[in-house]
């Protein structure tokens, strides 16, 4: 009887709508949002870190490059001083004397037979005006070229 009464009694509708579901969905959203924000921050920080690393790496490379330029410039200066020394008349004179050479006691200009000159030019295909040596930049032009390039450096 009691069971029957219980069955017959009108069912009490829940006083509040299924707010639990709503609450659960919001929390999940918040959680998702939080995770997303944290994720974005973490990714952002990671990207920032990578960028910083790359900037630092590039700076390091620039520094290395500048050091290389500076070192190359020093080498250039040292080498051109050495070249100037090797080409100097004083050294050539000393070296020639060491080889047993002596300055000429007399010198004379000898006219060349035009026939001989013409034959030589024809046989060697060489213009007397042109040097047999390959053309190369004079020391000062090499120096100026380096200076021009350095002047363009930022």
């Amino acid at each position, binding site marked *: 009887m009691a069971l029957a009464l219980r069955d017959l009694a009108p069912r009490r509708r829940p006083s509040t709508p299924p707010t639990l579901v709503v609450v659960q969905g919001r929390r999940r959203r918040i959680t998702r949002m939080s995770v997303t924000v944290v994720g974005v921050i973490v990714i952002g920080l990671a990207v920032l870190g990578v960028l910083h690393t790359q900037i630092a790496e590039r700076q*390091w490379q620039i*520094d290395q490059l*500048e050091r290389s330029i500076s070192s190359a410039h*020093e080498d250039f*200066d*040292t080498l*051109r*001083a*050495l070249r*100037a*020394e090797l*080409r*100097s*008349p*004083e*050294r050539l*004179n000393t070296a020639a004397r060491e080889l047993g050479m002596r*300055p000429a006691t*007399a*010198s*004379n*200009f000898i006219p060349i037979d035009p026939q001989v000159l013409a034959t030589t030019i024809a046989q060697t295909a060489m213009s007397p005006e042109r040097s047999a040596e390959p053309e190369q930049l*004079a*020391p*000062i*032009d090499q*120096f*100026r*070229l*380096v*200076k*021009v390039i350095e*002047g363009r450096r930022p």
Partner: protein
Amino acid sequence: MIGVIIGLLVLLGIRVVDIQTGDGDQYRVAAADQWTRSAVIPADRGTIFDRNGEELAVSIPSATVSINPKLIEDPAATLSVLTSVLGLDVDEQQRLFAEMEAKDRGFVYVRRQVDAAVGAQLAELRLSGVNIDDEPRRVLPGGDTGRSVIGLTDIDGVGIAGLELGYDQLLTGTSGSMTREVAPGGRSIPGTETVTADASPGNDLVLTLDRSVQFACEDALITQVSAIGAKAGTCIVMEANTGDLFAMASVKRSTTSGEVEITSGNHAAVDVYEPGSVAKVITVAAGLDSGVVGPDTTFVVPWRREYGEDLLEDSHQHPDEEMTVRQILVESSNIGTIDIQTATGRPRHWEYMRLFGLGETSALNFPGESAGILKHWSDLQGSEQVTVSYGQGMASTPVQLVSAVNVIANDGLYVAPRLVRGVVDEAGAVAATEPSATHRVVSPLSAEVMRDIMVDVVCAGTATRAQVSSFNVAGKTGTGLKAQENGTYEDEFGQRSYYASFVGFFPAEDPQFTVLISIDEPPAGTINRFGGTAAAPVFARLVPTIAHEVGIQPPDTPPACGVGS
């Protein structure tokens, strides 16, 4: 308890905020001072090139080694390493050890401007308290060639003589600055250098000198001064129409070793001498140009004549003879030259001497350059009034003298001597200097007549030893007496000292170069005391070299005299 902790944390927080905001900058600067050091980046000094672009003076990288005694942990070991790498002598070792022990100074030089490789070797050792800094070193790669003109810098790279001094401002760059972090031992941390201001290099000079011609001059002078036992010598090679000096050499016998060496000073621009008979070129040219005499005008010339209280003489005894103006110059007659000066008039003669560039510094503006001595004609006393006509009683520098004679080579036009051809600026562009100033001195016709007479001087006069194969040469010798300390031309032992010179140009028909050779104090009492014997042979030796170096072809017609004529 919790309240106390919170209180302390609050106080700590306030202090932190205070440090970060109020005194933050001050502390940051103090902290940076502890781990960073600033340093000057020395600017590269400009290079000095010869006219063909060969380096005459250049700055090369080198290292300077210094110590901070306060940071040296083991003085004995540090000194041992420094000694083995740098080869310090006993005195240096003792000085450094005392400094290391005293520890009262923070900076002491060990050695400056050592080889860069040695500096790098020391830097690798990372010794505590030992600093290695870059410091460029100035070198002359051609050895002593051109040293007299180039001059020198002090160890700090500041010009102190010659062109290094004269163009110091232009050659000196602007120093930069950098910071670097240092470890607690005072060592620099590699890779922490930050350039705060870039160094700007100095400009570069391009000279008119030709290194090969300069060397040839110096070599020929050293050979001659050594051979005849003279005191010193000078050589100047000037391009006739531009005034460019291809060589300007000075050599002198060392008072200590007795060896003849290239001088550090430029005697060719600084020292003054009474030029002697070379000055007759000016007197004769003045007479010809003013129209008072022609080359064949004659004078009766005795071998000596009295002027005031002095008896003036020719170099050799001869009977009174009728001499043409040409003969007077060819035979270098003092009395005849006085007659030409008298005919010209002393005021006008003086004006010509000024026009020839005497009595004022040349356009070279070389440091320490002399203006010579040329009194106004109205200030000359006694026999000086006439001896100036043959180069006694006035004085000139060798560069003044070569420029004066070059007037004849350059068709009567004075061209100022020039040593700097151009400047290479920061961007590598060459800015040529202004051409030398010129002014008319004598007419082209007068110059041509003078050239003709001066060829005779070489062919048949006092300068036969200046003859050169293949080229016609014109010139004039001079044997000046040197004034002694007692104000006369004889010392306390009655001895005379001479200044022997020759100034000539070639090819005489189209002069390209004027060359001065002077020999200071050739041995008195020997045949080598004259300009024709001491100086002229050096000229003859140099001409083929100059012609070869510069590429002057001999004329098609054979020379009027000399080898090969």
